[in-house]
């Protein structure tokens, strides 16, 4: 059960059950929808930017424990960060969940709990769905992003 415990860490389970920032931002200036056609996960990410800084960020939708916890913790982590910082963190997060590069705990902060995902290649898409959606929202893409 070692691998499973690494994947489904308490923090992740807790966030999946009680997701943070799980709401719509009325009048969000950036918003995008992300979809994983393989398992039907679907999220909307809402953003309120102040210049380059993310003033508010939230999400809504449905998905598995990994994708939901990832979305929840992403919104927690990114509030107050700049666009640039968000992009960089996504790069590191991607490295973390795919088992490349091994970013340090200090770089990842709370997101380090997702390191267990790297043992489950089929779940990388779940962990990154919210981040891809965020990217689309920042880039102002109109179409829903898909992990396929």
């Amino acid at each position, binding site marked *: *059960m070692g*691998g*499973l415990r690494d*994947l*489904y860490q308490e923090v992740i*389970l807790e966030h999946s*059950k009680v997701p943070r920032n799980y709401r719509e931002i009325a009048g969000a200036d950036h918003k995008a929808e992300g979809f994983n056609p*393989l*398992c*039907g*996960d*679907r999220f909307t990410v809402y953003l309120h930017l102040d210049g380059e800084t993310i003033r508010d960020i939230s999400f809504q939708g*449905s*998905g*598995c*424990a*990994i994708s*939901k916890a990832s979305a929840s913790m992403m919104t927690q982590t990114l509030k107050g960060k700049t666009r640039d910082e968000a992009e960089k963190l996504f790069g590191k997060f991607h490295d973390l969940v795919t088992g490349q590069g091994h970013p340090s705990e200090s770089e990842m902060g709370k997101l380090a709990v997702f390191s267990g995902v790297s043992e*489950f290649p*089929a*779940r990388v898409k*779940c962990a990154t769905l919210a981040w891809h959606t965020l990217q689309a929202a920042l880039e102002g893409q109109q179409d829903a992003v898909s992990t396929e």
Partner: protein
Amino acid sequence: MAVAKFPDFAQPEVHDYNVERVRADFPILHQKVHGHPLVYLDNAATTQKPRQVIDAITHYYEHDNANIHRGVHTLSQRATDEYEHARRTAQEFLGAEDCREIIFVRSTTEAINLVAQTYGRQNLKPGDEVLITAMEHHSDIVPWQMICEEKQAKLRVAPINEAGELILEDFERLLTSKTKLVAIAHLSNALGTVNPVRRFVEMAHAKNIPVMVDGAQAVARLPVNVRELDCDFYAFSGHKIYGPTGIGVLYGKLALLEAMPPYQGGGDMISSVAFERTVYNKVPHKFEAGTPDISGPIGLKAALDYVTRLGIENIERHENELLEYATKRVSALPGIRLIGTAKNKAGVLSFVMEGVHPHDIGTILDQEGIAIRTGHHCAQPVMERYGIPATARASFGLYNTREEIDALVSGIKKVQEVFG
């Protein structure tokens, strides 16, 4: 007077189906996944192949490989004979009257596209309708959508009830003078519902409407006889009946096939070609353009022979016992809701678990060596109908055992432990 003593008949041996012997034929089953014996319960997605199928394909490539229908040399003759022999095997398997009614295609998907693009293109006019059902697989929805859009025809959908059964009265009401074709699944891959195809065909034929049956899930689980069903087209895929991928069968009534235009152009589907005019070959070759997958029908033949030797009735009985046992055990677990509770079901157990996404169930079971499918099963409208994004689905095959169902149940309990 001595009391007449009735001979002490033992319970008649209804089936001497020996699942352990069957399992020995499937090399892939004898492995460990994440340290546990593989429990393969994803048979509705694809089935594993017995040694007999693998050997038939290997033998073909080692001894008989050549192109078919076009050589005078010995190997070409052998390859052609084997390919055509496979057609007769498929004909017998489906109970078709004539081997020209058997067209080799890539899969169920291609069979449905073929009918949509030939029969559909020829017969649909603006305002006409094609009737499908709410439980169809995407491959029995999208090809019809495409041709309907092209022909400005309408796609109609017969609804299902909460159990996942078609509602006969609604189906009948939707059969109108505008309906030009009906397409229905024999067995639903998402719900496990077995549809009373014979009755639907009767209702449609009473209004002169032809019926195409998607038999992808049915052929490996139920006896199928196209003449008894009286359906006009029947499609299935080799890989779902213990045969190889890349080969499928389209059955069509001869008169219909003869009246249909070709599907693709190329070699083999012609009898003469000139730049001014090409004369098409006769059925079935008219629908088999180019060099086909030759090893496919050969592998499929081995699979159909295998199933026939075991007896489809025995397989049906074995799987029904498994399904009944699994239904009883899984539904007794807390927080489980079965999706698809039709009276007549086969092979498929779809469920959702309170508070746990199917994808997480799938990952945890995989760690126990148990392979199930999680997701929408290419039937998004079905998920929509039940207001769920996905289900977890265990689907059974002729080699599954009760012990494997016990493993599934323990696996589900583990999921509940992890998610507390």
